[in-house]
């Protein structure tokens, strides 16, 4: 049984690329819209997808949680976005940052970019930058849309408008290609955000997931739940020989043995694959290799 569980963990980790591809496809299922420059506006758009995926992507199946959160907070009718906060808690408590590692299309995009061969740099020395994403969450996603409003209480979705590179990649670029009217309206803001996107692309080639580590407010939300989420990673201390391989392979700079549920862990499973003693594995609702072992 123990072996089986661990096999399952390893298999999941190995299949990660395919799961990411499938999740991206499901999140953006309305492919024909891409060529028409039209946004799908059906009922599914009232529900959030787990990952960072622009509502304005013509193919998008659902709404972006961060975009929806700002839209509600910034509207004159509502003070706070309880509905979307519910989504955050639901996704956060069940999966946590497993979403970043397995389900987020922009995470996959950065993973693919990082596979481009070339010199790679470690982000271990840049750890303080991790806190930037919490500042972005508080300032651009919550405070500015809530407080910087016009006379009738409407705010801008500041993160979407001024920062989000996913919005340019999935929203602005395909929409402007498929829709002449939108193309004619592109201006300085579009150029500015293209520069952000290009910077993220270049940084993603050099570093592993710079956007997730330093900028993403959705990752910041899910990271708060990482310690309590039903799905997490455990290390079986009776098996661990302390070789340190897990921490060595971790691209999110987590010390796996000390803090397997660190807020930065995106559950990519690199440590599970690397462990020579099969001591690291996923667990869901406390069911893990370790517990099976105790029986």
């Amino acid at each position, binding site marked *: 049984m123990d072996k089986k569980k661990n096999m399952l963990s390893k298999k999941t980790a190995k299949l990660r690329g395919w799961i990411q591809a499938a999740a991206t496809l499901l999140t953006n299922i309305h492919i024909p819209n891409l060529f028409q420059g039209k946004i799908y506006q059906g009922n599914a758009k009232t529900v959030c997808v787990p990952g960072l995926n622009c509502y304005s992507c013509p193919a998008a199946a659902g709404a972006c949680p961060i975009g929806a959160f700002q839209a509600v907070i910034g*509207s004159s009718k509502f003070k706070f976005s309880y509905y979307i906060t519910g989504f955050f808690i639901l996704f956060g408590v069940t999966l946590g940052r497993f979403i970043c590692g397995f389900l987020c299309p922009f995470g996959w995009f950065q993973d693919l970019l990082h*596979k*481009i061969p070339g010199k790679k740099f470690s982000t271990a020395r840049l750890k303080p930058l991790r806190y930037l994403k919490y500042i972005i969450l508080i300032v651009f996603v919550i405070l500015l849309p809530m407080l910087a409003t016009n006379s009738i209480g409407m705010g801008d979705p500041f993160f979407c408008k001024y920062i989000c590179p996913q919005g340019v990649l999935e929203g602005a670029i395909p*929409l402007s290609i498929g829709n002449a009217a*939108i193309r004619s309206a592109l201006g300085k803001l579009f150029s500015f955000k293209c520069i952000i996107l290009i910077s993220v692309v270049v940084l993603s080639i050099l570093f592993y997931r710079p956007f997730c580590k330093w900028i993403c407010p959705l990752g910041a939300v899910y990271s708060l739940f990482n310690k309590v989420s039903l799905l997490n990673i455990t290390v079986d201390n009776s098996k661990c020989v302390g070789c340190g391989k897990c921490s060595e392979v971790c691209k999110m700079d987590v010390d796996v043995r000390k803090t397997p549920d660190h807020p930065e862990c995106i559950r990519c499973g690199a440590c599970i694959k690397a462990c020579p003693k099969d001591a690291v594995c996923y667990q869901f609702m406390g069911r893990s290799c370790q517990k099976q072992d105790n029986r």
Partner: protein
Amino acid sequence: MKTKLSFISILTLCITLSLTACGGKQTAATDPKDTQTTTATEASDSRLDDLYQQENQLFADHADAWNKVFAMMDKSDADPNGNYADYLADTVESNKTSFTDDELKTLTEDIESIRKIDEEIAEIEQKNSLSDNSSQKDNSESASVFSNFSGQDFDGNTVDSSLFSGNAVTVVNFWFTGCKPCVAELSKLNELNDTIRSMGGEVIGINTETFDENKDAIKEAASVLESQGAKYRNISIDSSSAAGKYASEIMAFPTTILVDRNGNIVGDPMLGGIDNKDNYDALMEQIQSVIAADSTNK
């Protein structure tokens, strides 16, 4: 393991490349689609100019002989739809005796060259008129959007396409209540309405949330309009109508279009608020040109 690694990296590379390739192809496919017809006509226009130049050059090269021919021409005979080369040949033929052999030779050679040039001109003109027809077809599609227009203003009065026929130009602004940039330009639209009323124009608002006489949405939109001091008419339309379908295709708000007296959409839709001065000036210029066109048509 190594083969797998290289397989993965090749796969990734393929995906990234195909993504970028698709992107590139799309740009290439769509961008030129718009410009293609214009560049094609531009190219054929310059070719036409070129051909006319060639003909004139022939006349200029042998100016002595040709001036003689032109002097002999009976202008009442000239048939604009007939073949120009035939006409020239006839003139030369009927006055054969007044030319020297040399002159006759150059004239007949020139006439043959002109005949060839004319054939090419005719071909290009035919092509151009075909593409003109196709673009006219597009226009007629956009014209039908407001041909059977009906709706209700926020006070419950019904309106129909007489809404458009009463004005030289109608500025139709599509917006929705939760759209901040839309709300930001409402006061400016009201200003615009006041300005163009005296010129024979009117501003109309169509709020996409108020479709199908949605009472709550109308109430909300009305209060937003009031808060911004906007007094021009806003119309609630049916989402299933042609205008409703046109509005549901709009992917960016605010969008403003101009409609002439006959219910035809004039020019391209304008995206973005007119609280931006460049947008206001561009729109005003378009409005004036529609009004000018309207007064010449009368």
